[in-house]
């Protein structure tokens, strides 16, 4: 009976994963302190600032984001954040692609990145090289990466 229950549970879980795609549950991170989520079909990458990145910079008072349709290579600078201490922090494309959409709310309210970085994305890219996603850190590797700083 336990074996049957386990089997049912496993097939339910795999069913959920196959329905929405494993990557929908996976946030990856760049070494530039950005989080990245890839859509199920590997076509769209949503990029935000990690909470560690937001803490590092302090109060963010200006966000400069790219224009739509701009093409970026991986690690190419696409924007700037500036903190209230005259400090600039460059934003670098975690994967290559074309800018689909930018979060206009951040231009008027840059503090959203401090208040809730996990739920305030910055840019959505149309991904041109999905394989580059493999170069990003998963959450376990990111925890170790951040620990080095602490």
């Amino acid at each position, binding site marked *: 009976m336990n074996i049957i229950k386990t089997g049912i549970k496993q097939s339910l879980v795999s069913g959920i994963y196959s329905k929405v795609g494993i990557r929908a549950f996976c946030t990856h991170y760049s070494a530039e302190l950005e989080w990245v989520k890839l859509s199920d079909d590997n076509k769209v990458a949503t990029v935000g600032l990690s909470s560690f990145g937001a803490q*590092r910079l*302090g109060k963010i008072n200006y966000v400069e984001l790219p224009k739509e349709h701009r093409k970026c290579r991986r690690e190419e600078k696409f924007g700037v954040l*500036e*903190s209230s*201490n*005259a*400090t*600039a922090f*460059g934003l670098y494309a975690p994967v290559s692609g074309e800018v689909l959409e930018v979060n206009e709310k951040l231009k008027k309210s840059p503090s959203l990145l401090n208040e809730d970085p996990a739920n305030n994305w910055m840019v959505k890219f149309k991904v041109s090289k999905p394989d580059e996603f493999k170069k990003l850190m998963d959450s376990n590797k990111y925890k170790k990466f951040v620990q080095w*700083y602490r």
Partner: protein
Amino acid sequence: MIRLLRLNRFPILKQLQIEEALYRTPNSGNWIIINNGTPEPIVIVGATGKADKLVNLDEVESRGIQTMKRFSGGGTVVADENTLFTSILFEFETLKQLFPTMSSTTTTTTTETTTTSINVGNIYPKDIMNWSANSFYKHVFQEQLDFRLQENDYAFGKQKFGGNAQSFSKHKFLHHTSFLYDFKDDHMMACLKQPDKIPEYRQNRDHLSFLCKLKDRYQSKDHIINNLLKTINNLPTSPSIKEVTLEEAEQFLLNPHPKSNQLFDYNLKNWKDIINEYNPIKN
């Protein structure tokens, strides 16, 4: 080891290109750069600055003055041969070794502050700004009892004489300063607009009322440079200081790196990439 690069009337545009190369190249080491003036007047805007909001572009263009945007944060300055530029580019680990008792101060409420000993990850931009004033430039300007950090500026009392800009990356920070030894009053008033966001201590004063000149307190820039060199040589734990040549610094330009310094094109009314011997057009 800290590499010390001393320049004299070296174009600030090229200095910033070198600094960006050093900043963006992994393991480039620790640097202090001192440049005694830039040969031609130039307006320098911070990384997120909007040229039309900060600069009287028509006036600047008519005076034959270039406008550039640097890769670091901070405000706008009209620089010339009487501006003294200093840059500190350190790895966070080096800062921790030089100043192991440095603490990070975070303000939790308006009345409470928490001080914690530093690790690399809890050094914030404000900490570097405070460190630069309290542990470094306080010694450079020790004769001036009213030297202080006012928000992000160095001031005597409430008059600014030095503006700061910083950049943070994974392993290092850049803190650079434009010191106003002297400036042409006319350039300042004519070239720069009053910015939308101004420091509170400025209290809506115009540029000439808000700024002061180091020449009114020091007979020569050499006196200040000598104070700088003494402060560098007296850093805690006596790190080795190696004076290097421009050519050694220029080598880092050969490393591929993102280039964010830009020049304003007055015809196109837009920023454009700098094309010069440091960044030639590739065929």
